[in-house]
């Protein structure tokens, strides 16, 4: 064969492989409102930047007449490409090829690109759209899943791993996304569960639809398994690209800095957001936007445990992880879900060299049997653990309430916060004035001829004396009491000062966080 014929032959082979599951299957995929695996990769990556590997890989299985079947690329596309010029590794399961089912070679391809990502220290984006294990391949298929889970775990905290759920992801398959850092879901397209509705019906007798059991909204609002929710695939891809601008390639480098931009102070006037009456609610995201560059804030887990807000922004061009109590949702209490949400986000920031800014305004932990039975002790401890363990720059600004255990948990000086600031509206105390007065002055109140009046007087007395930032400041637990309008300037300065922060931690294999 001449070179030209060789090249033509190669092109023909590629053309065949690119057809995936063929016209019929692609039509079905489109009818489900989904893009094909190849379209998805192209939509996420920079134009013409995708380099595919293992295009000609085919399955090796023989049982159940499998040797008579050809699955192009074995149902998954892998390769490298760039997003805004920065390299990533990517894989996309192709539902048009044998339902994207995972067999040995399919898994081997995913493992290959994962190994590559870890070795090259670049982020990994995995697009999941698969009917699950390829039953015909038996235990080989399980081995494939196990190989992927192991690699997810090894890569955890080394490179960012993003999972995009664009179809079914059921049974064991869900554990790969669960082990990664960020899970993206799309309304009506994503379906994630350990066991499907049919099994739920036979075992428990409960009838439930796929959407209600494991749809995108369920995982974004109730279970918290998903971090980003989109209405369309295109919106989802924009979220992925946006997130990647905020996070670094690996744990060895910092996130790329952007040109600094002033916040939109007309829209977000920091002096007008927080009511000084501690019982009045407000949206703490406005405080974040009032200090963040260009008032941009990429919220993570926006609809889950809304009583705490976490997400990325920039201050003076540098990526910052924001953690903030949300007074307008459940008064901003810490509970099981919000502790999980915050703890995990803090650990991501710490692993990837992202400074953490905490805005605190919370009355404490949510009381009640439900929380206690769910293990709020264990879950709440995650926040303490994550903040204590983190060695990235840690800055706290107390806006209003900082009471009791919540004060300690929310990145206090005692957990080694680098900078502790408080607004003059801050109330830093062992508990709220009402509760404290009732305990400390119980005898006076009970023996008073007018207990209610005495109680009110004592509450006022306690508030006057203790519900302010100056007691804590007098003990050095707070570094400075600052005017709200100075907040951004002081944050910029603190981040600059801590850019060379060095911390020695005791040698250990790993800690044992309260899982």
């Amino acid at each position, binding site marked *: 064969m001449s070179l030209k014929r060789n090249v033509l032959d190669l092109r023909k082979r590629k053309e065949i492989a690119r057809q995936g599951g063929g016209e019929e299957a692609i039509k079905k995929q489109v009818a489900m409102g989904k893009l094909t695996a190849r379209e998805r990769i192209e939509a996420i990556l920079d134009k013409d930047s995708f380099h595919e590997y293992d295009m000609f890989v085919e399955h090796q299985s023989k049982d159940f007449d499998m040797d008579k079947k050809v699955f192009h690329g074995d149902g998954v596309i892998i390769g490298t490409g760039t997003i805004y010029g920065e390299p990533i590794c990517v894989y996309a399961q192709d539902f048009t090829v044998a339902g994207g089912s995972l067999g040995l070679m399919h898994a081997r391809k995913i493992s290959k690109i994962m190994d590559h990502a870890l070795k090259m220290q670049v982020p990994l984006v995995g697009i999941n759209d698969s009917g699950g294990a390829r039953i015909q391949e038996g235990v080989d298929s399980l081995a494939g899943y196990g190989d992927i889970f192991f690699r997810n775990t090894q890569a955890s905290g080394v490179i960012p791993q993003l999972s995009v759920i664009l179809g079914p992801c059921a049974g064991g398959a869900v554990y790969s996304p669960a082990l990664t850092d960020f899970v993206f879901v799309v309304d009506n397209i994503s379906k994630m569960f350990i066991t499907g509705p049919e099994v739920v019906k036979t075992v428990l007798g409960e009838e439930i639809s796929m959407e209600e059991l494991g749809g995108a909204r369920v995982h974004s609002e109730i279970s918290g398994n998903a971090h980003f929710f989109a209405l369309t695939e295109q919106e989802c891809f924009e979220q992925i690209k946006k997130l990647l601008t905020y996070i670094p390639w690996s744990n060895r480098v910092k996130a790329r800095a952007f040109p600094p931009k002033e916040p939109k102070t007309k829209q977000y006037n920091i002096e007008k957001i927080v009511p000084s009456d501690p019982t*009045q*609610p407000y949206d703490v995201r406005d405080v974040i936007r009032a200090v963040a560059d260009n008032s941009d804030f990429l919220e993570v887990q926006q609809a889950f445990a809304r009583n705490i807000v976490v997400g990325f922004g920039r201050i003076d061009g540098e990526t910052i992880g924001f953690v903030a109590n949300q007074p*307008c949702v*459940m008064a901003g209490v810490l509970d099981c879900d919000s502790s999980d949400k915050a703890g995990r986000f803090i650990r991501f920031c710490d692993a990837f060299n992202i400074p953490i800014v905490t805005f605190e305004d919370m009355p404490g932990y949510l009381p009640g049997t439900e929380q206690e039975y769910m293990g709020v002790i264990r879950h709440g401890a995650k926040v303490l653990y994550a903040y204590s363990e983190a060695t990235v720059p840690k800055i706290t600004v107390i806006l209003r309430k900082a009471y009791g255990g919540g004060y300690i948990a929310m990145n206090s000086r005692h957990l080694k916060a680098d900078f502790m600031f408080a607004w003059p509206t801050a109330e830093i105390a062992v508990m709220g004035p009402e509760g404290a007065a009732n305990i400390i002055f119980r005898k006076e109140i009970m023996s008073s001829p007018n207990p209610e009046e005495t109680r009110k007087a004592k509450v006022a007395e306690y508030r006057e004396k203790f519900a302010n930032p100056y007691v804590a400041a007098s003990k050095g637990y707070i570094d400075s009491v600052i005017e709200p309008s100075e907040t951004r300037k002081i944050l910029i300065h603190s981040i600059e000062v801590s850019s060379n922060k060095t911390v020695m931690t005791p040698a250990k294999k790993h800690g044992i966080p309260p899982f």
Partner: protein
Amino acid sequence: MDNAKYDKLEIDGVFYKTTFPEKFINRKPWSAPEPGAVATYIPGTIVEVHAREGQQVKRGELLCTLDAMKMRNRVVAPLDGVIAKVLVKKGDKIPRNTLMFEIK
């Protein structure tokens, strides 16, 4: 083995003899959520009821103020509709998951 002591659990079409912990036995079966039912998500005291029966409300409109966890929480309508029932009044101390309003 005393069979009477064991329950049966079906997994993948196979029945396994086993026992169930209390937590499993007492679990609440799943039921579809009612979008117009507004219940407390936090125990507290009703400070003010702003909506009345028969009133037309828009999503996000204030229904009542709930004092809980040292905060005047705003309880808002989850959807557009008409208030079919108001089940709370000013001063009520109510636990979590108490139905406050029904919107049709």
